[in-house]
């Protein structure tokens, strides 16, 4: 792995990221010509509708895609390194289950007080969902952090997190079981994930949270590299394993909780993208892997969002289905190709 090669890869990734961002602004249920688009960017547009579509609908959505994609991918990388488990992702600690419980409680409660319509009619609208999800995620996060301060090893934390996630998920199932079909549906729609519901005022809160989390993740690259060797090996070269672990869990909870609260639980990206970045860069070194994971996460999310609009009518596919249906084969292909190319004989 030469630094020249990784320089090229980062240049290409940056190029794709810019193209995907423009593509996400350009494509959508309302077809825009490139001229309309460039007019809006240059401020020469006299069409208020186009102006509105770009600035108030598509730009916030594209920014959300970048924030959610890179944030969740980073969390996946952090969890995979901390637990040294390739299947770990941002939701292993049960944070999405906590958010689901918050939303489920809100939706069900509002249905008891006079029908599903209340959810929409809540004084805050989408904010109600956000606050409920945030509260749920925060509750789980506090619990997981309390556990990680007390428990000495990561595997126990992983198991306890998963158990807590299962228990929370079961409560959500119970709530669904006793709720009426309409309420269940409006909850299910939330679990499909939706980045278009995030508007500019939401972004004012989401953006600083995600940027702070990403910044912290970038600072952690040195201890992350050491943790790759295992906790004991990390310790003997001078890593304060417990403190690093708590910081990693804190960052993951913050990022996952914030993103999930605004967009719903977006699966797949967090688990798959770190593998994609490793396969492309052929390195486990977080100094390059972390920025590559951030960029790949943003790219995948933007492309998935473009694909979600492909039906071209005013139907938009749920983002969660797109990430898995279109993303999974790509990641499988990249990893298979990479293994074959690099290790001809492996036994």
């Amino acid at each position, binding site marked *: *792995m030469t630094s020249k090669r990784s320089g090229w890869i980062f240049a290409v990734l940056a190029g794709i990221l810019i193209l995907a961002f423009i593509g996400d602004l350009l494509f959508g249920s309302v077809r825009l010509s490139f001229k309309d688009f460039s007019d809006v960017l240059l401020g020469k547009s006299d069409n208020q509708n186009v102006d509105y579509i770009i600035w108030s609908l598509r730009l916030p959505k594209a920014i959300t895609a970048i924030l959610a994609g890179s944030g969740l991918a980073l969390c996946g990388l952090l969890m995979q390194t901390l637990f040294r488990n390739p299947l770990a992702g941002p939701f292993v600690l049960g944070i999405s289950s906590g958010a689901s419980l918050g939303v489920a409680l809100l939706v069900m409660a509002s249905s008891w007080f006079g029908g599903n319509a209340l959810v929409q009619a809540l004084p805050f609208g989408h904010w109600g969902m956000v606050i409920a999800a945030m509260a749920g995620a925060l509750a789980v996060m506090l619990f997981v952090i309390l556990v990680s301060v007390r428990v000495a090893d990561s595997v126990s934390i992983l198991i306890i997190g998963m158990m807590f996630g299962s228990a929370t998920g079961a409560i959500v199932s119970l709530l669904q079981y006793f709720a009426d079909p309409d309420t269940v549906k409006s909850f299910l729609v939330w679990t499909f994930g939706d980045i278009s519901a995030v508007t500019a005022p939401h972004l004012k809160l989401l953006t600083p949270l995600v940027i702070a989390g990403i910044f912290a993740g970038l*600072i952690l690259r040195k201890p992350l590299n050491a943790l*790759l060797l*295992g906790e004991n*090996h990390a*310790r003997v*070269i001078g890593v304060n394993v417990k403190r690093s672990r708590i910081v990693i869990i804190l960052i993951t909870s913050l990022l996952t909780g914030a993103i999930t609260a605004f967009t719903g639980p977006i699966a797949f990206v967090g688990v798959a993208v770190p593998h994609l970045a490793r396969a492309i860069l052929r390195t*486990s070194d977080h*100094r390059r892997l972390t920025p590559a994971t951030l960029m790949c996460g943003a790219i995948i999310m933007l492309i998935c969002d473009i694909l979600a609009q492909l039906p071209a009518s005013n139907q938009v596919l749920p983002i969660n289905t797109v990430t898995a249906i279109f993303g999974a084969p790509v990641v499988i292909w990249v990893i298979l190709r990479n293994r074959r190319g690099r290790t001809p004989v492996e036994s």
Partner: protein
Amino acid sequence: MSQPQPNNMVLESHDLAIGYLYSGRLPLVLARHLHLTIERGQVIGLLGPNGSGKSTLLRTLAGLQPTISGSVKVMGQTIRSNQVRQTARMLSVVLTDRIDVRNLTVFQLVSMGRYPYTDWLGRAGSNDNDRIRTALEQVRLQSYSNRFFNELSDGEQQRTLLAKALVQDTPLIILDEPTAHLDLSNRISIMRLLRTLADETGKSILFSTHDLDLAIHTADHLWLLQKGGVLLQGKPAELMAGEAFEDTFRTGTNEADQNMVSDYFRSLKKRSVEE
């Protein structure tokens, strides 16, 4: 790091008790009243039957677990299990825990030994790179820099980890069973390497092993840790002269096993007298 030390002492333990502390239960003490010393450039072999507490002793000396009582000092400074950063500059440890990372080169892994000295990103400066190259030469892996660690043989992996300990630039290196899982020629090569490194660099080396024969030929001093917590120490020849080995390893439950151990040491002693 060869600052002059009074009486050349690298490690000293004072009335050390090792074992495990439990909350709400009595501690499990494996050995107590240990007064151990390691001098500059010494190679010490730690031997003992399974379950006698060899790993516990090494882990305690290395500050990886707290002492039950007493103290451990390296270069005059007390080792505390909650001060990993300071400890990492005083002693380096080669562990048996398997490292299973893909896409990690030998050079990258060895450079991790510079962790206590590098900047926030862990970037190795030219001084660090020189040290890494020197260490790779010392363990005779200079042509392996860009090989992937998980594609090396067990013996090569062990030498890589030793290089990582060397670049950590500590007066003391502790190795937990460095010859486990290795074939005979690799076991001999690791042991000779430890001897050479101690002689050439003046570093002190403490290792545990089940290879009695190799330890006897390599180490300046042996520590024999018996079940029940008694630790016998001395030069290999002194310990061979008495019944120390028999007492330490005759742990079998039936007489036949015990007799076999006695026979083994009788032949070992005969051989070393003939030499």
